[in-house]
Structures are given as structure tokens and as C-alpha cells.
């Protein structure tokens, strides 16, 4: 295949591309889901194909095919080169760099393909079954997903790479009801790695705990609304890191001045306690990548250091536009999708506060517990995250549980009020869609952080 990819690169160069690459990807996924004690889904999915990408001036032409036949791939290469000339964008040439070559297998203890599906089914069954121990559970759910992604890439700078990425995710969700109210709680274990991610997991304990926490939510109170002192848990801290500060630090938004963080390098943007990074090299995190989808080795990008803004995440193209170093953030969902600047593992670094100390200092406030979702706002810098639940803090003590609510405010104003950052860093894996599509695996997180935030609603 590497020979065919190289021929495709040659074909695009002969079609006058200034830069081009050819990327073969194969994704295999196993999905097991149980609902209310019965297997609802057991499916294996496979998708493979080749993406051809050519650059002419500042525009890109793409073509993709599910065929692995040389003739069809070369035809698609011609199409990509032709499409590149249809755009109107001007841009700097991507500077030639030394092409990296090599073949890398994922370093895992238990490759998922070597573990019988029966073992994975048993894992999911235990996780589902344990939830039913709690009487108020009306619906139990458990699911396991593993993915093995192989990528092979060649480009016009002599890159010839192939590598493997392996990820897994196990989650449960309990729905409880007391006849008048219905509530939900979930738990997730995920990361990059083989089946060792789950080998020593006590799934029965995980399932029971999830159901018990859902049951506790039946007596949760409504969240007070308005601006308050809020201690965000690692998941919600991660929402702020990823959705607002992360997306606004992707250099494609900077190049076109769409980000509220344009031209802030070297400026104080947050409290001294805030350090923010994107790190694609964390080998156990869900957003780990050895290389991005342009063949650039992943790296650690310091975005904010002690409250001072440092720099952006870059692809080959944005690095050329900004005369910066590519950071290994040019990513694509699969061979059908375009490459652009995307995050990997994005998080606030740990501080030196214990959670108990952070709580002690709050007269009236809220402690969040888990996220449902969040939304980006690179233009306005607005923060929106939905918390699954939280707890009231009164006179330095955690008191009543509160139902799901929304957090909002201007991100930079929130980060300027941050006066305590916790000791323990946690990452939460998931997928990030930029716009309405182009989903890539990422993680986000941080420690507990104490700030002033507007709360309200559900």
C-alpha cells in the first residue's frame, strides 16, 4: 500500500500540487451494549479507504475512495489535484521539512484482537447486572467499545509512516424513578491502550455505585440560580479547558482572527494559578496520538503558563501561515474527512490545594459533579457547560445535593477569578466534533478549580 500511496503523491505533484499527501486508514470497532439484562447490540464495524489531499496556493483539493485498487486511488489523486485549483484561498507555501519514516505498533499488554469477545460480553453483563441491585433502577445500560485504527501516510516531503492507535471505553448509565421523578447517573472508564484498561476493573462495584448515585439524585434539590462561587470538578474544569480556551487556541481560528484569543501571546489572560496544556503524547489518555493525520509527531503545547498566554495548536498549514512550529494537531476523523487543527488531551494542570481546603473557604457556593455537555465559543469567549449534578456549599461544608444545571459566563472573567486549583488532575475521554461533524477522540480535564460562575437552569 505504501508504494501505491507514493504513486498517488507523484500523481498529485504532476497535477501541479504544491504539497500533497495520501492517507490510508482502516478502523475496526467492536461495540457491545446491554440494556435491562439483555444483549441489545453486538456488532463489529470495519471502515477503510484512502484520502488524497492536494494543496495549490492556499486551497485544498480532496478526494476519497473506499477502494484499495491502485487504478482507483490514482484516479482519486487526479481528482484531488484538480479540486485544489477550484478554491480561491491564498496562503503561504508549507515549508519543506525532513520526512519521517517508520512503522509503529501500539504498545499494549492485551491487544483487543487477542481477547475473546465472550470475555468482553461478560464484562458488560456484570456491569449491567450490578445496577439492578438498587430497587429504584427502572433501566440499566452498559456498553463496551474498542477501536483499532491503522494509518499509513505518504507525502510530498518524503514522509512514509504507518502506525496503530488502540482505544477502549466502558460505560454504564442507570435510570431511576420513584414514581414521580426520574433521574440518571453514569460512569465511564476509557483511555488509549489494550484490554488492560479493564482487566482489573471491579465492574460489579462500578455498576452498583452508579445505580446508588442515581438513586441519591431522586432527592436532589433544584440548583440556585445566579452568579456564585463554584468549585468545578475535573470534568467541568475540562469543559472550560476544551470548549472555550482549547477551541479558541486552535491556530486555524487565529489565522482568520475568529478567536477571542487572537494576538494575546505574552499577555496575562488568567489568574496566576492557571496553567493550560494540550498534550498528545500522554500514552494512556483517550486523545493520545503518536502522529497526527499529516504525519507530524504529537507534542505537548503549553497554552497558558501561570496565567500568561503562550501559544497555539498548529497544523502544517497554520504553522506555515504563522511562521510557527507544527505541533501535531492536524487531525481527521477518518479517510473521508478533512484535516484541520484539532485538540488531543487538553487540561488545566494541577495546583496545590486539597479539595477540603477549597470547600472550607466558601460561605455560599456550589461544587459540581460530572458533566453532560459543553459548547465552544471561539468568537465570544462564552462558557457553557451542563453539569449532571452538584452539591451546595454552606459555611465551608458540603450540604445538599442539587439536580443538573448549567454554568455560564465569560471564560476569561471566570479564569481571572480562579483563586484555588486542586492537587488532583483527572482526564475524561470522549470525541470532539468541530462544527457539526469531524469527530476525533480527545480527552479533557483538570483538577477542581474555584471561581465565580453564573449558574442556572437544567
Amino acid at each position, binding site marked *: 500500500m505504501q508504494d501505491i500511496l507514493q504513486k498517488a503523491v507523484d500523481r498529485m505533484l504532476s497535477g501541479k500540487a504544491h504539497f500533497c499527501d495520501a492517507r490510508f486508514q482502516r478502523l475496526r470497532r467492536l461495540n457491545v451494549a446491554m440494556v435491562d439484562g439483555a444483549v441489545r447490540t453486538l456488532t463489529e464495524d470495519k471502515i477503510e479507504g484512502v484520502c488524497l489531499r492536494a494543496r495549490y496556493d492556499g486551497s485544498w483539493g480532496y478526494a476519497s475512495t*473506499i477502494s484499495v485498487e491502485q487504478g482507483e486511488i490514482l484516479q482519486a489523486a487526479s481528482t484531488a489535484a484538480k479540486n485544489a485549483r477550484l478554491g480561491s484561498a491564498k496562503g503561504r507555501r508549507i515549508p519543506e521539512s525532513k520526512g519521517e519514516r517508520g512503522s509503529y505498533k501500539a504498545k499494549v499488554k492485551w491487544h483487543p484482537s487477542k481477547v475473546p469477545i465472550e470475555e468482553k460480553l461478560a464484562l458488560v453483563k456484570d456491569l449491567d447486572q450490578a445496577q439492578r441491585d438498587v430497587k429504584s433502577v*427502572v433501566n440499566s445500560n452498559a456498553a463496551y467499545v474498542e477501536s483499532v485504527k491503522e494509518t499509513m501516510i505518504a507525502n510530498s516531503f518524503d514522509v512514509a509512516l504507518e502506525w496503530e492507535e488502540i482505544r477502549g471505553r466502558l460505560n454504564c448509565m442507570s435510570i431511576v424513578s420513584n414514581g414521580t421523578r426520574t433521574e440518571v447517573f453514569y460512569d465511564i472508564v476509557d483511555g488509549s491502550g489494550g484490554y488492560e484498561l479493564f482487566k482489573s476493573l471491579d465492574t460489579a462495584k462500578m455498576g452498583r455505585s452508579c445505580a446508588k448515585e442515581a438513586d441519591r439524585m431522586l432527592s436532589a434539590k433544584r440548583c440556585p440560580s445566579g452568579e456564585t462561587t463554584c468549585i468545578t470538578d475535573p470534568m467541568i474544569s475540562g469543559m472550560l479547558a476544551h470548549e472555550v480556551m482549547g477551541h479558541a487556541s486552535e491556530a486555524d481560528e487565529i489565522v482568520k482572527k475568529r478567536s477571542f484569543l487572537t494576538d494575546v501571546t505574552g499577555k496575562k489572560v488568567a489568574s496566576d494559578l492557571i496553567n493550560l496544556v494540550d498534550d498528545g503524547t500522554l500514552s494512556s489518555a483517550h486523545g493520545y496520538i503518536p502522529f497526527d493525520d499529516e504525519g507530524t509527531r504529537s507534542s505537548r503545547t503549553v497554552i497558558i503558563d501561570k496565567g500568561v498566554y503562550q501559544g497555539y495548536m498548529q497544523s502544517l498549514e497554520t504553522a506555515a501561515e504563522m511562521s510557527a512550529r507544527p505541533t501535531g494537531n492536524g487531525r481527521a476523523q*477518518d479517510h473521508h474527512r478533512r484535516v484541520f487543527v484539532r485538540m488531543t488531551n487538553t487540561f488545566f494542570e494541577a495546583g496545590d490545594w486539597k479539595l477540603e481546603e477549597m470547600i472550607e473557604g466558601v460561605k455560599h457556593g456550589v461544587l459540581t459533579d460530572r458533566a453532560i455537555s459543553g459548547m465552544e465559543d471561539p468568537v465570544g469567549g462564552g462558557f457553557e457547560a451542563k453539569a449532571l449534578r452538584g452539591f451546595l456549599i454552606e459555611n465551608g461544608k458540603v450540604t445538599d445535593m442539587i*439536580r443538573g444545571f448549567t454554568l455560564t459566563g465569560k471564560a476569561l472573567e471566570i479564569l481571572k477569578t480562579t483563586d484555588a486549583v486542586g492537587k488532583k488532575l483527572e482526564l475524561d475521554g470522549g470525541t470532539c466534533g468541530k462544527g457539526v461533524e469531524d469527530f476525533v477522540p480527545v480527552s479533557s480535564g483538570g483538577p477542581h478549580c474555584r471561581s465565580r460562575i453564573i449558574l442556572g437552569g*437544567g
Partner: protein
Amino acid sequence: MVLEAIRAAKVSGANQAEAYVVRSRSVSAYVDDSNVKSVEEKLDLGLSVRVLKGGRLGQASSSISSLQQAQECARTAVRNSSLIPVDKVFKGFALSAKGQPWFKVKDPKVASLPVEEVAERLKEVVGAASEPKNVMVPNGLLRLADLESVVANTHDLVARREASLVFLMLSAMTKGTRPGEGTELFFSPYLKELDAGKVGSSLKAKAKAAAKAKAFKGRMKLQVALPPHELSEMLQGSIQFALSAENVNRKRSPLAGQMGKKVTDKRLTLIDDPMDRRGVLSSPFDDEGTPSRRKTLIKDGVLKGYLNDLYNSQLSGVEPTGNGLRRSTSDTLGNYQLGVGIVPICLLIKPGTKSIEDMVGEMDHGLLVEKTASPEVHPITGDFGLEVRCAYLVEKGEVKSTVKHCLLSGNMFRALSQINGVANDATVSRNLIVPSVLFEDFELIGSE
């Protein structure tokens, strides 16, 4: 290919088999910084196979470039079926209807339009949205896609659907130190419905309005008018979720046990009309091959029916409604990988007679929403809290100010029982066609 997959499944021991194949070609042009930045042409072909063997249901999916891959996919599904317990619910795939359905909601121009012209159409919209010194179009895309899907099974069912999709999503942004951003969405099977000048002008106006927005301070309760695209997403996260028999059967739908009861304001009538030719998912059968017909789900506020796929109809012992779909409203790539989900094919809110402008003119104290960060609703409780990106505060029928950086809070199920008015501006928004709706008693919360 579908027949080959079914044959391979039977040879491997399946008692019943179903194959679903999708072939598509999509052309997407992306804008970046007011220029067409990327032009893409993508060909896709894939297959999903489900089998029943000894009462066990297995499945697999794959992109397909050869008959051998189709056979392998079928054999994988059969192998998977042997690993799991007997399914006590699922008894079989859809039975063959009279004749063989073959349905088109297809614009031939979408399939035949040269790639160059797709890029030109996008340039037209961008041109209409831009002002050299004031407004730019930072990003977005125009996608034209052509799709053919076939579902077949061992009951001799063969159902073929041909469809086209025109999808546009763009944002426009004012220049300057305090930029405002507006967005526009467009969904249709037909290219002629895309009026580049109209979409571009609307986009520009939204960006300029957002630039005037100021952070709202304090809090108040008020009437709120939600525009079609915002309302559509909130309905998907609430009433669409609640009408799914999967959620009813699993006791997580607030509408479970409410059949025949009043569940919303009497001004609300909800219909799923799979034959509505404006809809981007429309067809008279679903992706399991079950015929789908026009259904009134809520009539004058009273719950009349749920939506079913084959599995859930067999679980609850009712006729399937033909709503087991594996379709996307914005993309055609990889649809064969989507599991069957219960989705309305084309959900309609019966529009009212007044324009949204007239409704705002009659508002005493309210808010007309332009854009929220993400109009999501907690599907089980119906609670929501939405970050307002741009909205207009209205006093005695007149817009007094434009606001942002605040939370709009409420409960969607309660809101549907407190409808003040339904406008006449029905708009296609994904798999829904809905107008603006005016609700009572939301809360707006700003900083102190």
C-alpha cells in the same frame, strides 16, 4: 451485493438475514476566511448485515470494495450471533410488502452538478453575506450529496430509496474588536430551494445584530419566542426522545403511560409525515423495510401515538410504525455504520397564521431568541439552561436591546404546555419542519 450478503449469511447458518447497503457521492466545498478553501469529492459504499440464528441476533458492518468483503461482513454477523444468548424479543425482519417499493425524493441536479459549480454556489452565498470592511465569513460548508440505499431480507423484501441532500452551514462575523457572529443552516433535497442571496443577507444581518449584543445583568421571567432551528434541536432533545418507543419501553420517557392524555398545550399538533417532499429523510418505508405512513403523534395537545422500529414493536406487541432509520440529515458518508434508531422521518408542527413579526409586536415583555450556544435539553427531565449568544429584549411590542452572556432557563415539557402562539414561518430543520413558537414563563439570568 445485498443478495450476495444474504446468500453468504444463509450459507453460514443464518435462519434469517437482512442486508442494508448505501452508495453515495458527496461534494463539499468549505469556506475559510471568506474564501473557498477546500473542495472535496467523496465516494462511499458500505453494508450492514443483521442475522438471526437460532433466535440470536448478530450484526456487522463494513465499507465494501469487493463482493468478498460483503461475504466476510455477513459471516462476521453470523459468528457474532453465536456468541450471545437467545433474544427473547426479536422474532424476525420485516415482511415483504405488496410490490417492491422504490422511492425517490431526489433532485437530479444535485447528482449532476459539476464540482466547480458547487464551489461557485458557495461563493455566491459568501458574497451575499460579506461586506469588505464590516462582515466576513470565517467558516462553513455547502454539501451536495446523492445517495442510494437498498434494504433486503430473507422474506424477499427489497426496498430501494434514492435521495439527494443539500446542506449548508455557515457563520458570518463582524470585523472589529468586539465581533458578533451569526449562523445559518439550510436543509433540503432540492438545489433550487437554496436562495444564495437570501441566505447570505440573513447571515449578514444576524452577525450585525450579534455585534450589538451586550451582556445581560440581573434576572427576569418573561415570554420567549424560539426560532425554528433553535426550537428544532430542543424538540429533538425532548419530545422526539419521549415519543420513541425505545425510551417508552425502557421507562425513561416522560410520555410513558400517557397515551390518550393531554401532554401539551392544545395549540400543539405533531405529525410525522414520511411522504412530505420537503423532508431530507422522507420515504414511505424505513431502513428495516417497514412501510411508514403519516401519523398524528400529538393532536390538539393529546398524545396519540409513539414511534416504533421492528424491535420495539415486537417488544410491546404493536404494529411497527416504520421509524427504524439509519440516515443522517447532514451527511451521507458511513450511514451503513449507524445502528437502527427510532427517529421521526419528517416531524411537523402545524404552523399558525401570524408572522413572527406580528407575534413580537403583540409581546408585552419578552425575548426573541436569535441564537443560543447549544439548544440542548435534558431528555429525561426536560430541564434546560441555554447560554444566550444573541437575543432581543422586547417591551410593548418593540425591541429595546440585544443581549448575550446570560442563561435562558426552563423546562421543555412544561413549556410545551404553556404555548402562547405558533407562527407561520415553518422551516426545514434536520428531520423536522417547525415554525417559531412563543412560550410563557422562561427565566433569563445574567451576572449580578
